[in-house]
């Protein structure tokens, strides 16, 4: 609130604080600008929601047609035959993302803890720099790198190689969000814990990590969602499979690779399955993040 300039110092305080008639024009202007800016913000939000909502609606509408019992229980049928499902790809995606999370999330969180709570000097700088570079690496290059190391060494495509490729993509994302979240924890909480006689690592574990748990879980789930849809790195590592999963050292089917291959065929039936796969992929990510949030809330009682 802009105060009117005091013309007379003897004027009572209350009267000076009250809006003088001369301010009416200014006042209206302020209200109009407030309305306009508020309206613009709402409009921008709506526009941002349009593509998101249309993707959700379109995928749901197209995908529902392919979702039935067979989709979740049957193997893909050879081209030309109708029916069949993508059960192996659903399981394969869960295994690949699970493997990637099991490798990437703990490592990423530990690295984030190192950067935020312990890392000083050159090594921390280097780790942080490499993380930033890794975040920017196109995922297909990660696929090629894993192909060049694990796939060539094992002399076969495998679920393990696919999981590693996805974990490599997750790692910098989880590391940097963990670091950012831990840095948001006020120093006064670390001091409070140290002053109780807690050691550095105990403080980190019981106080700092606990206070940041909500943010770290959200960040990890974003990373999971990101790799769940990755196709390119899997083409060089896990490849795909028409059969059930038999072991981590074997090729494995996954939803994104099936979407990619089926969408490229001229067959109506396969397009239908690809839409179904897209819907299932979307739902898996959604369910996983809801579960993670609930688990986080239960374990830490925060937010």
């Amino acid at each position, binding site marked *: 609130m802009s105060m009117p300039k005091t013309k007379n110092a003897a004027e009572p305080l209350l009267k000076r604080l009250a809006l003088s008639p001369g301010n009416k024009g200014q006042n209206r202007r302020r209200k109009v600008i407030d309305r306009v800016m508020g309206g613009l913000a709402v409009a921008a939000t709506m526009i941002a929601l349009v593509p998101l909502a249309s993707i959700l609606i379109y995928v749901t509408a197209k995908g529902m047609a392919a979702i039935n019992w067979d989709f979740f229980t049957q193997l893909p049928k050879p081209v030309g035959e109708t029916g069949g499902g993508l059960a192996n790809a659903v399981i394969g995606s869960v295994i690949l993302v699970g493997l990637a999370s099991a490798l990437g999330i703990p490592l990423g969180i530990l690295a984030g803890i190192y950067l935020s709570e312990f890392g*000083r000097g050159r090594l921390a700088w280097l780790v942080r720099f490499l993380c930033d570079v890794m975040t920017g690496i196109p995922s297909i290059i990660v696929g090629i790198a894993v192909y060049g190391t694990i796939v060539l060494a094992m002399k076969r495509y495998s679920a393990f190689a696919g999981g590693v490729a996805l974990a490599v993509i997750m790692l910098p994302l989880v590391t940097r969000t963990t670091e950012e979240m831990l840095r948001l924890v*006020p120093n*006064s*909480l*670390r*001091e*409070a*814990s*140290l*002053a*109780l*006689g*807690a*050691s550095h690592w*105990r403080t980190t574990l*019981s*106080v700092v990590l*606990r*206070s940041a*748990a909500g943010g770290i879980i959200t960040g990890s789930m974003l990373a999971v969602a990101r790799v769940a849809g990755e196709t390119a790195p899997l083409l060089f590592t896990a490849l795909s499979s028409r059969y059930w999963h038999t072991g981590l050292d074997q090729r494995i089917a996954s939803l994104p690779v099936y979407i990619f291959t089926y969408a490229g065929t001229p067959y109506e039936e396969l397009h239908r399955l690809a839409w179904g796969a897209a819907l299932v992929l979307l739902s898996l990510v959604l369910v996983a993040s809801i579960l993670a949030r609930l688990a986080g809330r239960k374990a*830490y*009682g*925060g937010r």
Partner: protein
Amino acid sequence: MQIRLQVEDFSAWYGQTQAVKNVSMQVVQNEVTAIIGPSGCGKSTMIRCLNRMHETVPGARTTGRILLDETDIYADRIDPAEVRRKIGMVFQKPNPFPTMSIWQNVAVGVQINGLRQGTSLEEIVEKSLRMAALWDEVKDRLHHSGASLSGGQQQRLCIARALAVEPEVLLMDEPCSALDPLSTLKIEELISELKNNYTIVMVTHNMQQAARVAGNTAFFLQGEMVECGPTAEIFTTPKDKRTEDYITGRFG
């Protein structure tokens, strides 16, 4: 009159800046010792040195000795965590752990340090909250978040949290500066109560507060301890001209 803490020729630095200069002073058992002085005089740094919190700041270092009873807390073989368990601290701004309940806030220190034989956590939490004069206000909502309390209650929760690990000395770094007058009064009453069982050192920039609660007062100026003695003497017949100037409001 038993000496509990003995500071001997102690200095503290932040990088190149010396914040505490060759201070020697004593803290008497079961008494409140107030450290007063203008902003930036090193009083907060001094109190943070008393439980080795100062060294948690990057670039901080110290010289000199501080004896708790007969032991130098800065000796090589001493674990700073052990020092801090014996010498508890309450900070300027209330800092309860936001993700923990009121009960957990008090219990966590005991859980970290391990429960002593023959005691129960429930008892310790209740006893600590009673000592901090908070029990009656929170006993029905022990499992609510510590952050749901008012500022004054949060500070008393922090005092309860510090008391739960049964320290021998309690340090308070301007414990009332973020609180309203009524909460301040409550904390001051609490401090007068606590000195029967604890030795207390408090930093304050409120001279009236020092006069109200402290038996001994030390006056700091530009990192040096100018004068230390019974509060009544410091406030009525200061030996040093600078103390007199500060007390009478001529600077600071």
